[in-house]
């Protein structure tokens, strides 16, 4: 059987990068990051159960420069995943599927995630 050049269906590289694709990828990336954050949350709870020494060492680590960077990024990941998760739930209810709406809600999610993170850390 000879292998002639067959036309291929257009794939990722052929399209102009849509904003919705970025959000979809970010939803997965932040989800995996938050799964790792879950381990950190468990470590914190275990340290609290272990006693004052263990807990305060953990708290000190989290309040160090590196710890603050990790927590800030995790909070941004949480608020992003939360905002985009609500967007997914709205889709599940059957709304917002038009391209114009999906693009607009993309920006709403990005702005919300950043604002919620800023608001949270300034309130804290």
């Amino acid at each position: 059987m000879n292998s002639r050049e067959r036309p291929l269906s257009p794939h990722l590289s052929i399209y102009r990068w849509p904003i919705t694709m970025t959000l979809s990828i970010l939803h997965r990336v932040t989800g995996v990051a938050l799964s790792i954050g879950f381990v950190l949350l468990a470590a914190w709870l275990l340290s609290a159960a272990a006693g004052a020494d263990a807990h305060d060492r953990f708290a000190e680590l989290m309040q160090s420069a590196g710890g603050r960077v990790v927590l800030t990024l995790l909070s941004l990941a949480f608020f992003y995943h939360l905002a985009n998760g609500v967007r997914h739930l709205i889709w599940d209810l059957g709304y917002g599927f038009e391209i114009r709406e999906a693009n607009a809600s993309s920006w709403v999610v990005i702005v919300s995630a950043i604002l919620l993170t800023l608001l949270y850390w300034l309130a804290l």
Partner: protein
Amino acid sequence: MTDRRTPMARVLGYGSAKVGTEHWWTQRVSSVAILILGIWFLIGLAQLPGYDHANVTEWLGSPVSAVLMLLLVVSIARHSDLGIQVVIEDYVHQPLLKVVSVVVSRFLHVLVAAASVFALLGVAFR
């Protein structure tokens, strides 16, 4: 076309996939739980007067916080397990490695959840 399925198969309506919408639906329900409990947790955390052991255990050890925190941890474990499962199924193509990865991920999620619940009970009944 004649429907050759047994009455039971027709009632269950699963076809050859053997599972229905549990995965999808559980992912949604756990997301709503985390949406509510997660916001409660972050607000409570922000309102603590300090992050030393005494303040933290007083908060986490109170009955309301302990129960809500327990529910949050279990919801996160369930949601994360389902999410990571999808990621594994998308990127690991070798069939045996795929199944092993999903099972290992599930074990780890149950482990982290059990450890968290154990720790919370320890703080609550200290």
